């Protein structure tokens, strides 16, 4: 028998180590809190202040002024309409996709599933360029005459968010027990009835959660709208940019940012609600069940689902990507690698200040910094929020932190960028203008990427049964050893995916970067946007080649990340 009896002075020593542990946890919570306070809350507060405060007093005349402009209401209407239609279409197309790709099994499923996620991580500027080349008068779908229209923007938004619905709903659907539907069938319900009355209600939390996130992404879309929307087409997000950079009306931009925050806050509240009920429903999950698409299990609905999914994958997802790829090889002097050769130049007259390769190098550097920041901050957030402390105040604090840390999920990148411009000229009254320095770009990108990191790592940490921690503790593992030997090995694999996502997001980040990148050090997306804004076939060809380069970089990063990820990980949003 072992003698582990504690010495007489032991309780005191234990109390001291418990205090030390408390301090460490407080630190782990304080680091991300401080980061988000300085680089998220403070800039956002500064924007709100701009809109509401004039000469030290509350002044709502800015609101009255901006809200009385018909232009504002047209833009708000467009934003809401674009987000609503985009969300409905993404859900309607995404649910059959979730069924086919996550519930059924067929050869090549893994490949199709991986392909479907590509658009989500593609830089928005690339998506914009891709849809423009498809919808342009000479593009494959030019006959639709959608170039620069509402329909074109919505199509691009659905392209972008399809994966969110498929992944969120699909992951949930895969764990749904099919026996409930089978029970309904034996009780006399025809297949469609069993689906509508048993499966659909069970899926509702997942669908609602996905829809809220998609609505959020659609209403804060920036790069896609800026590139695809024609003249006169604007959303709140692009209008903030226009007011700031073109009309130099910072107060109007501030008022619009406040409006945007309201929309985002509402969508986030809905998303949070849906997420809680989804997580609750997930507690009842069983082992994954997959249905064969062939043989006696096949149903009439399967054929329709396969048809819809096939059409989406080929027509909506593959066509724009292929078009960009093909077009990037067309130069004014015929087919060839001319556009790629031009990446080593600064483009046509007055197009760029650096070569595309230099911009790509800047992008990689910045993305590396942003990824480190986002993974450290996001990883700490996930770690702290996944704890289930015994004492009530601590539990409440964890729940509060959970909510606070989700806020940046909804923040529009443009608001972050604009907020940095407004707030960080003299941060907290310190005479230190950060705006000219290159540090702000990776920090802004990290703020945008943190929620994704949290969303990827947190579900994995949360899924670890408390009793697994207890089992380790009873076997003699100290709290630190439990973290190291139980939580870490389980979460490390999802951390690989988180690194990939953060890297991909910062590589393609355009909204905040477009405010903050110095003219002499632009990133790849900024360069692409500048190129398509210039006239001339050479510049467009270069933009297409640069888009292919950016897409290839992103895809390579995600491929490595998917390799690192084994087993289950969190959902996309």
């Amino acid at each position: 028998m072992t003698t582990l009896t504690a010495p007489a002075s032991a309780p005191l020593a234990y109390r001291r180590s418990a205090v030390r542990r408390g301090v460490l946890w407080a630190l782990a919570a304080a680091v991300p809190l401080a980061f988000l306070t300085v680089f998220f809350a403070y800039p956002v507060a500064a924007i709100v202040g701009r809109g509401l405060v004039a000469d030290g007093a509350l002044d709502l005349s800015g609101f009255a002024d901006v809200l009385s402009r018909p232009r504002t209401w047209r833009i708000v209407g467009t934003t809401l309409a674009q987000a609503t239609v985009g969300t409905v279409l993404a859900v309607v197309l995404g649910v059959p996709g979730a069924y086919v790709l996550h519930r059924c099994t067929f050869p090549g499923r893994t490949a199709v599933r991986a392909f479907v996620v590509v658009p989500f991580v593609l830089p928005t500027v690339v998506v914009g360029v891709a849809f423009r080349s498809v919808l342009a008068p000479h593009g494959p779908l030019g006959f639709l005459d959608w170039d620069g229209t509402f329909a074109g923007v919505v199509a691009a938004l659905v392209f972008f968010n399809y994966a969110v619905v498929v992944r969120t709903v699909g992951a949930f659907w895969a764990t749904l027990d099919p026996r409930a539907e089978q029970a309904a069938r034996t009780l006399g319900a025809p297949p469609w009835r069993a689906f509508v009355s048993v499966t659909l209600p069970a899926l509702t939390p997942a669908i609602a959660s996905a829809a809220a996130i998609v609505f959020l992404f659609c209403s804060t879309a920036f790069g896609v709208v800026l590139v695809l929307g024609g003249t006169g087409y604007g959303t709140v997000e692009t209008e903030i940019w226009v007011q700031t950079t073109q009309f130099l009306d910072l107060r109007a931009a501030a008022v619009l940012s406040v409006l945007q925050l309201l929309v985002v806050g509402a969508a986030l509240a809905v998303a949070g609600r849906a997420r809680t009920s989804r997580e609750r429903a997930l507690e009842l999950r069983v082992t994954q069940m997959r249905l064969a698409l062939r043989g006696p299990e096949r149903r009439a609905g399967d054929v329709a689902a396969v048809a819809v999914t096939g059409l989406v994958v080929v027509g909506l997802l593959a066509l724009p990507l292929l078009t960009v790829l093909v077009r990037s090889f067309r130069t004014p002097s015929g087919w060839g690698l001319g556009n790629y050769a031009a990446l080593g130049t600064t483009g046509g007259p007055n197009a760029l200040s650096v070569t595309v390769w230099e911009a790509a190098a800047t992008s990689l550097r910045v993305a590396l910094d942003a990824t480190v920041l986002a993974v450290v901050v996001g990883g700490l957030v996930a770690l702290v929020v996944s704890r289930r402390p015994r004492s009530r105040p601590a539990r409440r604090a964890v729940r509060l932190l959970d909510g606070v840390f989700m806020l940046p999920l909804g923040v529009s990148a443009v608001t972050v960028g604009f907020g940095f411009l407004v707030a960080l000229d003299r941060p907290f009254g310190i005479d230190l203008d950060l705006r000219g320095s290159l540090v702000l770009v990776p920090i802004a990108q990290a703020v945008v990427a943190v929620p994704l990191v949290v969303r990827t790592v947190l579900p994995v940490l949360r899924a670890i049964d408390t009793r697994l921690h207890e089992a380790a503790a009873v076997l003699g593992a100290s709290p630190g050893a439990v973290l190291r030997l139980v939580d870490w090995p389980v979460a490390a694999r999802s951390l690989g995916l988180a690194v990939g996502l953060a890297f991909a997001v910062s590589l393609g980040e355009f909204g905040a970067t477009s405010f903050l990148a110095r003219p002499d050090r632009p990133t790849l997306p900024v360069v692409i946007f500048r190129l398509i804004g210039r006239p001339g076939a050479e510049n467009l060809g270069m933009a297409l080649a640069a888009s292919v380069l950016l897409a290839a970089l992103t895809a390579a990063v995600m491929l490595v990340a998917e390799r690192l990820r084994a087993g289950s990980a969190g959902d996309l949003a």
Partner: protein
Amino acid sequence: MTAPGAGLRVEDVVVLYRDDDGTTKAAVDGLTLAVAPGEVVALLGPSGSGKSSLLRAVAGLEPVARGRVTWDGTDLAGVPVHRRGMGLMFQDGQLFPHRDVARNVAFGLQMQRVPRAERARRVAELLDLVGLAGFGDRDVASLSGGERQRVALARSLAPRPRLLLLDEPLSALDRALRERLADDVRAALTATGTTALFVTHDHDEAFAVADRIAVMDAGHLLQVDPPAVLWHRPSSRRVAEFLGYEAFVAAGSPVGRALTGEAGAPAPDALLAVGPGSLHRVPDGVAATVRGAGFRRGVVELVVDVEGVGRVTVVEPSGDPAAALPAVGTQVTVRADPHRVAVVGGYG
């Protein structure tokens, strides 16, 4: 036996439990219990009686609101879970999914910084003990429910805990496996000389595994005794009912005397507990009406209403395969087997 204070002592312990609505209730309410070194004690009680809370409090996973938990006379208050040197086996194993079988079993040894070679030897020894020799490099996900519990048992025994706590370790398994594993657990515990506290709501399991059984209800201890004493001398009606006794009758009453016949009751004012197997059919006895009849694993069970006693199950060996079961409503006469009637202690 050993010196007083040796082993585990739970003294007047209260464990609180917080409901979803925020109110606190006592899951364990002023309970006192001692487990001597080398002894296996089963905590038997219906679900919600507080047995698991008590177990978790002993392990240090729940705070003790009042009272003391001591080991060899040393108060364990303030000693964190990982320093208590105890083992805990969960209902569903809780094996580490990212470690194979051998590395699961080795976890506790690793925490004790046992050298690698010694660790490997001990793991092999334990896997052999639980009948899983050669399973070391298997992925835990590939194991059946019974195999998982065997690994969990090996894992908790490996660091030689001074006390092993088992929280309904067999409840998630099917019946045949449960019965077999109960014997295996008993064999493993006695082979290693492990002191153990075994929580269960299943009588058969408690009787198969324990040296003494502690019956718990609503946070209180009702009785602690060796299995045979518990079975034949339940301390109260509540305990007898929980053990499965169906009807109670005063030994001195006319029907009590008629039931016990010439053999007589141990004491005229005793309360007798009658259960399945207590009564058998005789040509002359107390009148009873058959209310139901059925087969159970080689025996016939008749549910009869005995006048003045109540509804009791009569168990008879099933003899002639051609013989029909008595029809419902048939009148029979029964008498008690004095060795199969319990005397309830709380009465007289």
